[in-house]
């Protein structure tokens, strides 16, 4: 399926240095070979029954729902965060940037512990949450929160990079044409940074979909409620590593399809 390419017809590629293709191919091989190796080890006989089992289907459905939800949350909160980091200057901005990056390097399991310390019954906000009658930990909400926590920085960092690379020349023009900041944001900034936002959203979605450590710690592993596909895979691995590999294949295929669909609908715009 050829990607619709924005490059105007008739414009020839400038030509990359030939040597570039060598490391690119090596890198691609390094990524692709393990996937091929994985494929060769799958027992295709039991594949069908395995991936259609109740628990697998429940886990897949849950994973998709929660990952999409947390990607949406990442966009809702991450786009403003990236904007503030890329387009304003304030005292302590570099500290703010570092703080936002932290979940990137926190081992996910520790991230889960931190979330428990915050939103758990005995956590920082536990009392508040209880008073509000909410039950967060060990619910599907907790899964979404865990995924959002780990995925958010991916969106913020890559989007901030894209915003800075793009510059603000067109935003300036829009302002002199009388567009208020909101209009500038919606009609100029956002459309122009769309490739960067798409990359960021893909990264966030992928990170959410693969999230394991924070989820098992903060949300637990209840079938249909908090046991996402990675958790199911982890459990399968206890007994049958090959089943885990087969399930991963499902995860990979689903992710690829979702990503391809978003790309397609974007280029179709």
């Amino acid at each position: 399926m050829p990607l619709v390419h924005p490059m105007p017809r008739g414009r020839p590629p400038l030509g990359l240095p030939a040597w570039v293709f060598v490391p690119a191919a090596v890198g691609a091989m390094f990524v692709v070979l393990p996937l091929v190796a994985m494929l060769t080890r799958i027992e295709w006989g039991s594949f069908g029954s395995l991936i259609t089992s109740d628990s697998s289907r429940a886990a897949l459905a849950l994973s998709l729902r929660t990952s999409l939800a947390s990607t949406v949350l990442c966009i809702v909160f991450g786009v403003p965060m990236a904007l503030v980091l890329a387009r304003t200057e304030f005292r302590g901005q570099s500290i703010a940037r570092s703080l936002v990056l932290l979940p990137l390097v926190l081992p996910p399991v520790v991230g889960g512990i931190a979330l428990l310390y915050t939103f758990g019954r005995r956590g920082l906000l536990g009392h508040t949450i209880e008073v509000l009658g909410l039950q967060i930990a060990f619910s599907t909400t907790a899964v979404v929160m865990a995924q959002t926590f780990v995925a958010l920085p991916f969106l913020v960092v890559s989007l901030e990079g894209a915003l800075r690379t793009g510059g603000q020349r067109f935003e300036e023009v829009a302002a002199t044409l009388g567009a208020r900041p909101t209009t500038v944001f919606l009609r100029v900034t956002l459309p122009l940074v769309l490739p960067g936002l798409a990359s960021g959203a893909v990264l966030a979605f992928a990170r959410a979909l693969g999230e394991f450590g924070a989820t098992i710690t903060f949300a637990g592993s209840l079938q249909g409620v908090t046991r996402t596909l990675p958790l199911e895979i982890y459990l399968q691995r206890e007994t049958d590593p090959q089943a885990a590999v087969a399930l991963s294949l499902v995860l990979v295929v689903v992710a690829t399809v979702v990503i391809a669909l978003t790309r397609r609908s974007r280029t179709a715009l």
Partner: protein
Amino acid sequence: GDGTSSGSSTSSSSGTSASGTSAALSGQITVFAAASLKKTFTAIGAEFEKAHPGTTVTFNFAGSSDLVSQIQQGAPADVFASADAKNMAKATTASLTAGQPVNFASNTLEIAVPPGNPAKITSLADLAKPGIKVVVCAPAVPCGSAAATVERAAKVDVKPVSEEQSVTDVLGKVASGEADAGLVYVTDVKGAGDKVKGIEFAESSSAVNTYPIAALKRSTNGSLAQAFVQAVTGQAGQGILAAAGFAKP
């Protein structure tokens, strides 16, 4: 040993009585169980639901220490089944359990080797030979402390190439042939089917790992929780556990 035998006898009697008083049992419980119990407990849960129509048992499988900290943070758990006494002790110390925990199974170590046993391992002493790649659990995790115990008992000094985080990781290295041998539980060897071969060794008796289970104080369905504990320690449960290679506690 004492509490356990009494527990198992009570359970077998209440197991029969359970079918008589099943009208009293209804509702839903969540069982927090060690990840290594996934296969067996899922089967026990299914039997249990069949025996007590109208009840639902859901499971939260994870590492025992994860489970304890989740319970400590207020997770909605009714029953806790730990893979070692140490983590159960954390729960009892924090007065989270309803009554004394009951040991329901035990497990000993075995040498796991890849199919065909390429390094020709026959005894624990072979693991100390130079050039043999051995993986064990890290001393911080239950199977690792067990491994250390047997090594000490057998006066064998194994130099592992890796001290893994869990039994599963050890099995993975052995099954893939990456390591020549590993120390894991009997049940793990059995569970792995023909992907690894088990080699028993005498010194394994020096480290017996026991699995305790307990209903929890905060349970909203205490009677159902107790009934599940009894089902595990009862005949049906014990049968399933034995089939998976677990020894009596």
